[in-house]
């Protein structure tokens, strides 16, 4: 039952994401060319991402905050953040001014990267393993992985990879079978209805301006 639910959520996410490229393009960027991603390439792409994550996040001699900043910078080149951000906003995207669209993509990217950085996050003895690659829709591959160790329960993470402008890019992440994009889309839609565009921007800003843990003075 649980695995059916997980599958159902991913199928829903996949359908929604598959529909996204047909929408109108971002006002501030050219629409990237979409081509089918090779399964072996998708496998290598996610394997490398996991290896780089662990390598960067375990780097000695740097603070956790610095290691995560480097990691976020690395991730930003592997995630189609404009695409994901637009998808999450759905039909509301067109109601934002150009300035608001720019601000939203910037805040959304920063927030999402911080969530993934703390998810993959620099845990001791952490291991990242790719389990399988399956086709998802016309263009995408779903790369399933799990993160084990680090003194926490194993986490299953599914990466939806699409080739944009001849580069494999992550367009969604499902943690424990729940699509982050779908979850965010539902949450943001509710915030937009309640507090409008500025309420959404302020919510994202609040989530990116939290201060980290402190050491002894």
């Amino acid at each position, binding site marked *: 039952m649980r695995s059916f639910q997980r599958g159902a959520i991913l199928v829903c996410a996949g359908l929604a994401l598959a529909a996204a490229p047909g929408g109108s393009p971002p006002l*501030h960027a050219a629409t990237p060319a979409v081509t089918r991603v090779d399964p072996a390439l998708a496998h290598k792409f996610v394997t490398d991402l996991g290896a780089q994550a662990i390598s960067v996040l375990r780097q000695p001699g740097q603070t956790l905050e610095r290691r995560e900043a480097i990691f976020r910078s690395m991730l930003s080149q592997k995630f189609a953040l404009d695409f994901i951000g637009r998808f999450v906003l759905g039909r509301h995207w067109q109601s934002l001014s150009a300035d608001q669209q720019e601000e939203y993509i910037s805040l959304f990217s920063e927030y999402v990267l911080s969530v993934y950085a703390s998810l993959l996050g620099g845990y001791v003895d952490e291991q990242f393993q790719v389990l399988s690659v399956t086709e998802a829709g016309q263009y995408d591959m779903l790369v399933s992985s799990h993160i084990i160790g*680090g003194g926490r329960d194993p986490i299953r993470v599914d990466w939806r990879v699409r080739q944009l402008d001849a580069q494999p890019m992550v367009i969604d992440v499902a943690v424990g079978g729940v699509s982050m994009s779908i979850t965010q889309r539902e949450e943001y839609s509710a915030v937009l209805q309640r507090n409008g565009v500025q309420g959404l921007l302020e919510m994202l800003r609040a989530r990116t301006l939290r201060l980290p843990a402190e050491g002894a003075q």
Partner: protein
Amino acid sequence: MMQQNMDRAVVCRGNLATRRRLLFLNVIAASLWLTVTGCDGGEDMTFSKGYDAYQQGNFASALAIWKPLADAGDARAQYNLGVLYSEGRGVKRDPQLAAQMWRKAAGQGHMRARHNLALALIAGENNKQDYPAAIAELQITADAGFANSQYSLGKILIEGLGGAKDVVRGTQYIIKAAEQGFDKAQYSLGKAYRDGAGVPASEEKAAEWFAKAAMRGHLRAQRQLATRLAEGLGVPRDEVAAMKWAMIAANQGVSEAAQLVEQLNQKLTAEQITKAQTEAAAFIPE
């Protein structure tokens, strides 16, 4: 207790074995005494061990070390526990518990906790966004000089969230944060001067603040600066410098910057492009 033990050591100085035993007991007693009174910073040492574990990625250990301190009323431990719960590190993510921890620490005057509590009230992860309460907290931390709080409060006042818009007062908070070197505030101030919102319009000042934020690694400021350098808007036209900044932003995934790189590629010589590439590669944010 320490003094009594020391006195006893003096009385018994004739017997070497006894003296050694008493010396050992004295050291233990002194350590216990100092730990109880906090004179040796025992609590600080325990707190620091938690922070070391946190920095090493051993979040479960950090949690185990800080939890008893937090339960005993240590505001720093309460604040840090809030961070662990908020980010789900070493524990299941629990924004409500995080806010509770920050509230406890804030009640003891812990400013960082007050700041994070205010942001939790705005982020509304479990409850609806509560701007009036958040503004009240941010007012205190902003006036105490926290750049993050000044910037947050400035944006809320400018947008009129939870109250009437106050662009002038909001911009004053943005200026305070920008002057402290907070890159997001510097970028916002650049836009304020560009648009004449809360300050008199000035392309030169806009470019100046975009440049400051760009130097600190702010991607949108880098893109703005690149465009301004390419067009000579508020700064002398310099297409090589424009290419440098566009390359830096494009490498971080800013698509508009990538478009500018393509445009400049058509205009600049191979030598100019190499110069821009070299400078972009050497760039390290302040």
